[in-house]
C-alpha cells in the first residue's frame, strides 16, 4: 500500500517536472515582455520534431541533441522576437496585448498547419527507452527522472543567471517593475530579445522530452500552451520558482487524483485548481507584484 502511494507520488512529481519545464519558457517570456506567446506550444512541437529528425539519423540518447537544440532555438527565438514582436512591442498596453495575441496565435495556426502538411499528420514518438530503476517495489522511470534532473539543473542555472549576472538582474528588474527599470536606463528591447531566446530554448528542451517520453502531433500546440498557462498562473506570472512549483503541483495533483478518484477527472483537477487560485489569490502562489 505504502509502495503504491509512493509510486503514485513519484510518478506525479516526475510528470510535474516535465510540465514545469514546458511552462518555464512561457513564464520567462511573459514576465519580461508581457507577451503571452500563444505559439509556445508550437515551439515545443518544433523542438520535438527537431529531436525526432536527429534521432532518425543517430540513435543515441536524445538528450545529446540538446547540444544542437540550444543554439538553433536561441537564434530562432531572437529572430521571432525581432521580426514579429519588436514592431508591436512599443504600443500602448491594450493594443500590444491584442496585437501580440493575434500575432502569436496566427503563428501558432501557421506552424501547426505547415507541420501537418509537411510531415504527414501522423503522430510521432522517439522509440528510445532506458531501463527503469527499481527500488523495493517502486519503479522509477529513468527518462522521466532525467527530465526532472534537467529541469532542476536548468532552474539552478537560470537562478544563478538572474541573481549573479548583470543581464540577469536587468531581466528581473524589468519583470518586477517595468517603469522603474526604464527609469534607470535598462535596455528593455535587449531584455525582451533575450527573454524570447531563453524561452524558446526552454520550450525546445521540453519538446525533446515530450517526443521521447510521450508523443507529439501537429495540433497539440494550443492545448499544451493552455496547460502551461494554467501552471504559470498557479505559480504566479513572472515567477520562475512559481512555474516550477506550479508544474510540480499540477503533476502531483493529477496523479493523486487519478489514483483516488479515477483518471476520469484528471483534466478537471487542473481546471479546478486554476479556478480556485484565481478566486482566492489571483496573483498565484509566488506572484510578483506589478506583474498583471
Amino acid at each position, binding site marked *: 500500500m505504502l509502495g503504491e502511494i509512493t509510486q503514485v507520488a513519484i510518478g506525479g512529481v516526475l510528470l510535474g517536472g516535465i510540465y514545469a519545464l514546458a511552462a518555464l519558457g512561457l513564464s520567462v517570456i511573459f514576465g519580461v515582455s508581457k507577451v503571452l506567446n500563444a505559439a509556445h506550444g508550437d515551439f515545443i512541437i518544433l523542438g520535438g520534431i527537431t529531436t525526432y529528425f536527429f534521432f532518425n539519423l543517430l540513435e543515441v540518447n536524445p538528450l545529446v541533441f540538446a547540444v544542437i537544440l540550444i543554439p538553433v532555438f536561441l537564434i530562432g527565438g531572437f529572430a521571432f522576437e525581432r521580426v514579429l514582436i519588436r514592431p508591436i512591442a512599443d*504600443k500602448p498596453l491594450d493594443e500590444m496585448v491584442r*496585437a501580440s495575441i*493575434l*500575432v502569436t*496565435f496566427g503563428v501558432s495556426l501557421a506552424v*501547426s*498547419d505547415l507541420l501537418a*502538411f509537411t510531415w504527414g499528420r501522423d503522430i510521432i514518438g522517439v522509440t528510445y527507452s532506458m531501463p527503469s530503476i527499481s527500488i523495493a517495489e517502486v519503479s522509477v522511470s529513468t527518462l522521466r527522472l532525467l527530465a526532472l534532473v534537467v529541469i532542476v539543473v536548468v532552474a539552478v542555472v537560470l537562478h544563478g543567471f538572474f541573481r549573479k549576472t548583470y543581464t540577469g538582474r536587468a531581466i528581473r528588474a524589468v519583470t518586477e517593475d517595468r517603469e522603474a527599470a526604464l527609469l534607470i536606463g535598462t535596455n528593455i528591447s535587449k531584455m525582451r530579445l533575450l527573454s524570447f531566446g531563453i524561452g524558446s530554448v526552454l520550450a525546445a528542451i521540453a519538446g525533446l522530452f515530450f517526443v521521447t517520453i510521450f508523443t507529439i502531433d501537429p495540433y497539440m500546440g494550443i492545448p499544451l500552451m493552455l496547460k502551461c498557462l494554467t501552471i504559470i498562473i498557479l505559480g504566479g506570472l513572472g515567477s520562475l520558482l512559481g512555474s516550477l512549483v506550479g508544474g510540480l503541483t499540477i503533476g502531483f495533483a493529477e496523479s493523486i487524483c487519478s489514483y483516488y478518484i479515477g483518471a476520469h477527472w484528471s483534466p478537471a483537477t487542473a481546471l479546478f485548481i486554476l479556478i480556485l487560485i484565481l478566486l482566492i489569490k489571483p496573483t498565484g502562489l509566488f506572484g510578483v507584484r506589478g506583474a498583471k
Partner: protein
Amino acid sequence: MLILPVVIAVLVVLPYFVPHYIVAFLMLLFIYVILAQSYDILGGYMGYVNLGQSIFFGVGAYIFGITLKMGFPVPLPFLFALGAAAAMAVAISFPFFRLRGFYFAIGTFALANLMFLIAYNLVITGGPHGLFIEMANRLTISYYAIICFLVIAIFINYKLERSKFGLALKSIREDEEVAQTFGINAFRFKCKALVLSSCLPGLAGAFYLWWTCYISPEMVFGIDITLIPPTMAFLGGTGLVAGPLVGGVVLMFVEEVLWTKMAYLHRATLGFMLVLVGMFLVGGIMRSKRFIGIWGLLKKYVK
C-alpha cells in the same frame, strides 16, 4: 441608415433564390456574429475580455434540447434556454467579477472548458454521444430567427453607445476605481452587462440545435466556438457598433474562400493573415486609416 432595411429585406428573401448551402453558411456566420456582438458588450464597452461566451451558447442549446426531450411544447424550451443562460450569467458574476483584466479572461476560459467537461461526462446531456432531437428540416425558421437576433444584437450595441448604461460601462473600462468613487455600483453594472450579453447567445444556441438536430460538447463548448467570436471582435474593432459584424463577415468569407482554393494550407494562410492584422490593423479593421477613409467616402456618397 437607409441601407439597413434593404440589406435585411435581401437576407429575408434569400432562401428562395439561393442554394441551401449558402443559407446554412450565412446562418452559421450570423450565429458567430451574434456571439461576437454580445461579447463586445463586455469586451469592447466594459473592457473585460470574456472568453466564456460559449458557456451561454452551450447552456442555451443543451437546456433547450433537454427540455424539448422532456416533452415541453415548443415555445417553452426556448424560454427555458433564455432563462438558463441568464441565470448562468448571474451565477458567474458573483465569483468571477472579483477578477480583473487578464485573470478574468483566463478564468472565464477555464470555466468554458469546465462546461465542456461537464457536458461530456453527464448522462443527461448525452455525454460524448451528444444530444439528438427529433429530426426535421428547419433551416428556414432558424435562419429567420437568427436574423432577428442579429438585428437585435447590433441594435443593443448601437443603443449602448448612446445610453447612460453604456456610459457607465465605458467609465468602468476607463478606470473602475474612479467610477466607483463617482457613485457607480460597479458590481451591479457588471452583472447586468453580463446578463445582457448572455441572452442572445442562449437563444442562438437553442435555434442552432433546432436546425442541426444534434449537438455534442465539442460543437457548443469547443475551442472554435469559444475563441472565434472574440477574434472576430478584435479583427473588426472592439467597442464599435459594427466592429464585430465587419470582423465576422471578413473572417468567415476569407476562411471560406481560402478553404475552397487551397486544399491543405488554408489554416496556415489564415494564420499569416492574423499575423498581418496583428501587426498593422491592431485596432481592428474599422479603425484602420484606410477603412475610415473608405467609410467616409461611402457616407458622402450615400448622402
